């Protein structure tokens, strides 16, 4: 008779076969059998968080910096509901997560039992798929399918809900290799004909631009390499979305910077005026397009994406190529080389006028700000952080708000998977737990969470986690005592009525750091900034860095209020001349 395994053992057997080395979780009544089993599986290390949302974001940081799926383990009821924000965040930003949740025993489901909630019902709209395992014999199939669904196609979160009696129940276990292959929807089926059409468009274009997104990062490091080759080969300018940062070197001359609401003047104007727009792995998000009716009016549009439902969802395109961007770029480069060996030179001549125009836009230096020697400007702080950390392989996470945009604008990334930020959902409190996940996946590397003082307080408790596992993450708080982005919108759109956006009664972050057992550093003057940042980098412990910055600083440039790309606000001066009037407040 074959050996029988309990449901809890099967969970770990599956994790082992999926080569999971870390799980992020929090125990509770309905997952105790799984926690009991943890001691017998030394290859799976458990990271105990302080709140289930933290487990979810940490798993996201782990996944985005390592390319492997993040695994979360939570209990029923509040454990599951607490992780919903992180699942939604992962769903919006296409991060592969496998969340295992405990559930009350099957005979109690539907009776309003203690810590019962309809977990699969609640998480249905924020996962790619979820399962309630009511039969022990389904467990291993479901577990492996969960990993398959989370990591294939457009990645995303999945959830497996396991009632407590199923965790105790016993059955046989068949190794994954012996199981028949799981059938998963495959959309990587583009044709050479599509590539030929793309190349024809590229040949005709005189004002082309690449607009690339998180899909390039999700497609793996190879995709970024191939993208660099393609961009060099064509000589076309390239701009990336917030999530695409790092897929192309931030300091390269062909790179126009980030586009969108707080993107550069040259990137947005190039998007508006181009005659060929090649979208690779981005989704025409509303922070990118601005006013839809006036979005890139003169261009032929190409969209390369693994998700067929992204095509024509927001912007109607002329050529859609559904496939893994890595494979599409590879085929494109291959065909380009075959067809035209002297492409680099001929193309550069053809589009030289376009580059002249772009240079003109660049002279605006839209990311400039007026520095001060009396008060730390937040942009200056990010620039100094970049200069002092660029000599090592640094990983940056952020919270959400002004500091996030300044980080995106002023920190330059050269490699993919180095930039973890909550883009789609915009989750304040994302950065600290994400940094924990990044540090777990990349021990010895420098991990900095560029944060705001309001965001950080949302998941502050996770500093305890960092201390417990000796994860020397650096929390770099740009402290302006305001929910800065809220304050900025109130200034621009609501007649400076700063309703509830001032952070009253902030803690002393240095003392707070000491209370948690990590290091607190404060910088209040531009003169001391470099020295303090150096100090932060050199400490081999978690650090909370309280950087007091200008309270009134706004994040520019900015596409205001549903305007098209070519009507950007450049700075405080520009803003006076372009007063925003009329309705629209209601739309936010």
């Amino acid at each position: 008779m074959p050996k029988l395994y309990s449901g809890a053992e099967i969970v770990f057997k599956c994790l082992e076969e999926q080569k999971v080395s870390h799980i992020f979780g929090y125990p509770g009544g309905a997952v105790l059998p799984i926690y009991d089993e943890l001691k017998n599986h030394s290859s799976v290390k458990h990271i105990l968080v302080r709140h289930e949302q933290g487990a979810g974001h940490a798993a996201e940081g782990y996944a985005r910096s390592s390319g492997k799926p993040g695994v979360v383990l939570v209990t029923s009821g509040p454990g599951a509901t607490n992780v919903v924000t992180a699942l939604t965040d992962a769903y919006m930003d296409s991060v592969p997560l496998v969340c295992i949740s405990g559930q009350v025993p099957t005979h109690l489901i539907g009776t309003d039992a203690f810590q019962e909630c309809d977990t699969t019902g609640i998480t249905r709209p924020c996962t790619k798929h979820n399962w309630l395992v009511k039969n022990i014999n389904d467990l291993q199939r479901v577990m492996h399918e969960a990993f398959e669904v989370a990591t294939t196609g457009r990645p995303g979160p999945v959830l497996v809900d396991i009632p407590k009696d199923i965790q105790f129940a016993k059955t046989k276990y068949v190794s994954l290799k012996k199981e028949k292959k799981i059938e998963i929807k495959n959309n990587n089926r583009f044709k050479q004909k599509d590539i030929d059409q793309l190349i024809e468009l590229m040949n005709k274009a005189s004002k082309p631009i690449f607009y690339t997104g998180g899909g390039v990062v999700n497609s793996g490091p190879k995709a970024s390499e191939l993208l660099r080759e393609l961009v060099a080969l064509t000589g076309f300018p390239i701009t990336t979305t917030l999530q695409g940062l790092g897929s192309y070197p931030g300091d390269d001359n062909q790179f126009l910077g980030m586009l969108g609401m707080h993107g550069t003047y040259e990137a947005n104007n190039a998007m508006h005026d181009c005659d060929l727009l090649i979208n690779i792995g981005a989704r025409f998000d509303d922070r990118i397009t601005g006013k839809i009716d006036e979005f890139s009016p003169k261009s032929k549009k190409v969209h390369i994406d693994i998700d067929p439902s992204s095509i024509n969802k927001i912007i109607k395109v002329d050529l859609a190529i559904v496939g893994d961007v890595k494979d599409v770029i590879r085929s494109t480069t291959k065909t380009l080389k075959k067809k035209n060996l002297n492409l680099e030179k001929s193309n550069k001549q053809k589009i030289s006028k376009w580059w002249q125009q772009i240079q003109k836009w660049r002279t605006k230096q839209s990311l400039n700000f007026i520095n001060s020697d009396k008060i730390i400007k937040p942009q200056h702080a990010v620039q100094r952080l970049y200069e002092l950390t660029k000599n090592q392989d640094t990983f940056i996470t952020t919270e959400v708000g002004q500091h996030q945009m300044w980080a995106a604008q002023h920190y330059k990334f050269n490699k993919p998977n180095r930039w973890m930020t909550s883009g789609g959902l915009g989750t304040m409190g994302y950065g600290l737990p994400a940094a924990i996940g990044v540090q777990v996946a990349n021990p010895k590397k420098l991990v900095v969470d560029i944060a705001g003082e309001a965001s950080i307080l949302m998941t502050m408790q996770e500093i305890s986690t960092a201390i417990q596992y000796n994860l020397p993450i650096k929390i770099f708080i740009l402290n302006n005592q305001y929910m800065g982005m809220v304050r900025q919108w109130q200034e621009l759109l609501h007649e400076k009525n700063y309703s509830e956006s001032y952070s009253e009664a902030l803690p002393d972050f240095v003392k707070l750091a000491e209370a948690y057992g990590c290091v607190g550093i404060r910088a209040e003057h531009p003169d001391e900034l470099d020295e303090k940042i150096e100090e932060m980098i050199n400490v081999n412990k978690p650090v909370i860095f309280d950087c007091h910055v200008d309270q009134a600083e706004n994040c520019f440039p900015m596409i205001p209020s549903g305007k098209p790309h070519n009507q950007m606000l450049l700075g405080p001066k520009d803003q006076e001349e372009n007063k925003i009037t009329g309705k629209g407040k209601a739309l936010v």
Partner: protein
Amino acid sequence: MIKSKSAYSSPSKLSKLETHIIVVWVDNEASVLSRVVGLFSGRGYNIESLAVAEVDQKNNLSRITIVTTGTPEVIEQIVLQLKKLVPVHKVGNFKREDKNVIFKEMALFKVIGNSVKIKKALNACKKFNPVILDQTNKSAVIQITALRREIDKMTKNLKSHGLISVSRTGAVAMTRGAEIFN
């Protein structure tokens, strides 16, 4: 035009609304209907009628027929979003005007009255394959199959013939001729 003051763009012009019949083949498993319906409600799509039942016991397949209204862009999104769901096998999409597709709904009418009145009611239903499922000396249950607007009309007309209760299904659809949808 009034300038927008919002950080979200204002809605652009909508194209014309069309009515479509979406047919979805799904694994007959727990919560599959909720996934499909949740997709519609979550993304703000509209459901006019819904019919669902298992059609293949061996392979455990159910067929869901949804009548929906939307712009061509929305209809395209509905189909693509449905195809992404894990338990969905294939999705058919037909315009209501499509001559190659048959649509039918079924209705049950309960009519109260003497045999003369019931006969009149039955007569009024003549065009729609009426079947008497139950009859007493003062009531009858009549089944008809017809299009949605025909049933709408009948429910109005039968009021004067003693109609007191109506029960009806969503539309089901099938292509004409020998071909099947793939």
